[in-house]
């Protein structure tokens, strides 16, 4: 299998994630798009590990670290969503204008 295909899939997931993070109105969907970008990065790490250093697993170990950080990020982000929902009674990002002058 040509390794370029893996990097192309990773790039497609990254682009879709960027689109979702910028264009979605629902804050939970924005967090989901960020998870998509995390997965694109992990796929890239693992494909590069297999392509460049197939006899070690350092890239996979780095991907494990990345997955753990992503889990912590998702937990904190979703807790923030719940706190913001309690304050604004809304999940649409354009309604969150607490810092607007």
């Amino acid at each position, binding site marked *: 299998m040509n390794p*370029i295909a893996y990097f192309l899939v990773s*790039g497609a997931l990254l682009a*879709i994630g960027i689109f979702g993070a910028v264009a979605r109105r629902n804050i*939970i969907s924005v967090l989901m*798009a960020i998870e998509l970008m995390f997965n694109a990065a992990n796929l890239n790490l693992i494909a590069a590990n297999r*392509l460049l250093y197939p006899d070690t697993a350092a890239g*996979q170990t780095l*991907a494990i670290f990345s997955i753990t950080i992503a889990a912590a990020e998702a937990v*904190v982000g979703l807790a923030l969503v719940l706190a913001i929902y*309690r304050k604004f009674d809304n999940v649409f990002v354009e309604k969150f204008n607490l810092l607007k002058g």
Partner: protein
Amino acid sequence: MLTQVLFCFLAATAVASAIGVVVVRNVVHGALLLGLCLTMVGGLYGILGADFLFGAQILIYVGAIAILFLFVVLLSGRRAEFAEKPLNAMAPQAALAAFLIFALVGGILAQVREALHSLPPAAAATTSSVGDLILGRYAIAVEVLGLILLVALVGATLMARGLDKERV
């Protein structure tokens, strides 16, 4: 041959369900599609030979994070919000930016196409070498990672509970 068929199926499903995550109107469907997309990416890890990460992806991403998204969707928002439009006014510019980024990645890959013609054969099983690295060379980093997870757990509990006294 089998790998190619499997790769085409996994990659097509992953990209299609990722597009579904960012355009679908109902957020519950979005969370379920996210679970599908993460499963397919896990399958890609599997055919890359990363067997431990395949299991970790299914356990952590699909089993924990996607389900957590479902819980939060069900805890917040109302049914009427599913009828509103899902994208904001910046959607065309965001689509253009996403396409340009994908074109950039594709252009860079086209430049290095000759150097990357075939994958080297995978190591037999990577779980033991990943375990050696985690508990050997990167042991201190793993400890710090555990501390980060603990802080995230405590902070998330505190924020989700609310700081006001009557809501305990």
